């Protein structure tokens, strides 16, 4: 006597779950599309980032300041000096060094309105941090607070691009800004 009732309940539960599933599929679809938007975003960011070829600095702070100069007056920056100070302060906490002669000085600061990026290439080794790690490529990034996931996606994307030794060599040897951007965006 109870059995048909139990079957009915299971059937109803099954139908209910079928009804619940489609929204999840929609959500997954949305996530995929937002990712592809981000890919074009990062290429766009690289193209727009200013590049300094042939840094003259002989220490890390000077190299950071020199690369930062490329961003002076850029629309993403609200207070230039405060931004550079924030980067240098962050540098003292734990200098972000990627290895293979790449430094990634960055800061999360109110002094920028948008995520900003600048590249600097030195033809000689610049010592970075307390260990005087030799650096050829400086990637300077600033982000406003509250954009952690976007910022992380950007940094992860950059790091991914630097993983290829051929790319690294080509970047270090880039004769001008256009060549640099072409290699990195490629």
């Amino acid at each position, binding site marked *: 006597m109870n059995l048909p009732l139990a079957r009915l309940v299971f059937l109803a539960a099954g139908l209910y779950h079928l009804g619940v599933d489609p929204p999840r599929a929609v959500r997954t679809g949305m996530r995929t599309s937002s990712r592809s938007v981000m890919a074009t975003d990062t290429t766009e960011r690289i193209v727009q980032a200013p590049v300094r070829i042939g840094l003259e600095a002989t220490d890390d702070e000077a190299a950071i300041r020199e690369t930062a100069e490329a961003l002076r007056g850029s629309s993403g920056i609200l207070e230039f000096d405060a931004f550079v100070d924030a980067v240098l302060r*962050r540098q003292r906490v734990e200098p972000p060094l*990627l290895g293979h002669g790449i430094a*990634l000085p960055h800061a999360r600061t109110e002094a920028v309105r948008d995520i900003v990026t600048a590249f600097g290439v030195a033809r000689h080794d610049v010592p970075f941090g307390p260990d005087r790690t030799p650096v050829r490529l400086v990637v300077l990034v600033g982000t406003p607070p*509250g954009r*952690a996931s976007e910022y*992380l996606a950007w940094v*992860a994307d950059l790091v991914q691009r630097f*993983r290829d030794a051929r790319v690294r060599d080509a970047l270090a040897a880039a004769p001008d800004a256009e060549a640099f951007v072409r290699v990195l965006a490629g």
Partner: protein
Amino acid sequence: MAVARALEPTVLLRRLLKVRVWLAETFRPTELQVLLVWAAVVGVVGALGAYLFRGATDVVHWTLTGRMGGYVDSFAHLPWWRRILVPALGGALAGTALHYGSRLGRSQRSTDYMEAIVVGDGRVAFRQSLVKSLSALFSGASGASIGREGPLVQLSAMLSSLPGRWFRFSLPKRRQLVACGAAAGIASAYNAPIAGAFFVAEIVLGSLAMESFGPLVVSSVTATLVTRAIARSNALYPTPSFVLQSYWEIGPYVVLGIVCGLAAPIYLRFLRRSETAFQRLPLHRIARLALGGAVVGVLAVLHPEVCGNGYSVVYAILHNPWTWQVLLAVLVLKVVATGATFGSGAVGGVFTPTLLTGSALGYLYGVAVGAVSPYPGFVANTYALVGMGAFLASATGAPVMAIIMLFELTLNYQIILPLMLACVIGYYTCRTFETKFLYGEALERKGAAVVAEHLAGLTVADLMRPDPLEIRVNSSFREIAEAFLQNRFNNLYVVDEDDRFVGVVSLHDVKGYLDQPDLARVLIAEDLLREDFPAIHVDHPLEEALFIFERSRSERLPVLESATTPRLIGSLAKTDLLLHLVGRHPRA
């Protein structure tokens, strides 16, 4: 860059991270779900506790009477003087245990599990519970007319309060676990998993909200499974098939509901009267309990059926034909014996004695109906079955539990129609005359006003869990990844050099990048901070926390010392608050 080098070879760690994130994303184990696991543990422990208690009772019973098995049977084989001596001696032993045991405990902590769940701090006193159980063991084993569910539930509630103490669970979680323990105790005592959960939900919590009911279900099912695995596996009171002679027979069952509803207040008042009467006697506690035992013994000389909780008598009433004169005598003597045992201060419940009273009432009523019934082959046993349920519903004030309990005790589906009706009618009838039900009294004494006051005065501090997992602003990405790997949190709280809360690192932000070792070299917590995460101060009222949870989607809030010193001192879980709210109205 020692950090980065250390990370590189840990391929395993990265894989684990991926799995952990996938699990967290797929299943999102909330604290509520973790509580279910604890509920299962409590179920196992509760069932084992109940099993051991039952075994110990049998051993003591054998020592006192020289026989194993049913109480009535044992007493029927004893000479008259031993029928008096055994319960009296048992009462004296029970009294001695209580008397000297109460000197053992240092704490003023409540031993009442119902109090611990609803108004107390969710801790059941350990030693006092053991003392009470020991006393109940002597009473029960010596044939006192008292139910065993009291000590069984007490024991398993006490055992289930232990993990809450050891792991310093928050107040609502501790209370919930004690509730689970009580459900496990009942489920294993009566082999009734549904009723175990409903007993606690309806009688103790006064709520069927899923936050609290779910864990109860898990622990009572687990307890039943364990009990069935190690002991018996049948319905406690299997009954012959039940048939409605005609649909018109529903009429007499409705009247039976009313009869039970009218009889229950008398029964309840009699129990209370005998309690006050015994308390007035100028006797020592040990002598009082011995006297209670002796009264049962004297009655047992006339009818050994009054001994013990009454299980075998209920079984006999449901199966055998009785002459109404004998059954009436048994009923009256049994109620007196129960009053004497209960009144003398013996520890235990009155569940099975109540079942016996109800079934005897129902049978007698059935005999009366049978006298005028036009149907041949009329049996009064079915009325005993329904009367048992209706009387239980009336006396406990918990009709839902009574219906389910009866169904589970008998596993007879045909009984449902008249049973439901009679239970509800009995409950409503009883309620017009009596508002103090069985089991409700312990809580009643505390007073509803005290409950409300106690809860309203709570602040975040009362539900807070101290020492949250925290990371520093300069913690590396590797440390962040490990913290997410080792804990189930969706947000890591970040503090600065002075322990001040500055924000969180959210799993949502970093989940896609936890397996990228390169990032460990360039990122620290500060870079990923979310400063806009809501926090609450330790001295804020709980309503404030509710308000914040309502607006944010977080499962947990950081708790700060004060607005002026935002030092991180703990965290407040949404689950705890929900459970707390569930327990807010212990009885409607």
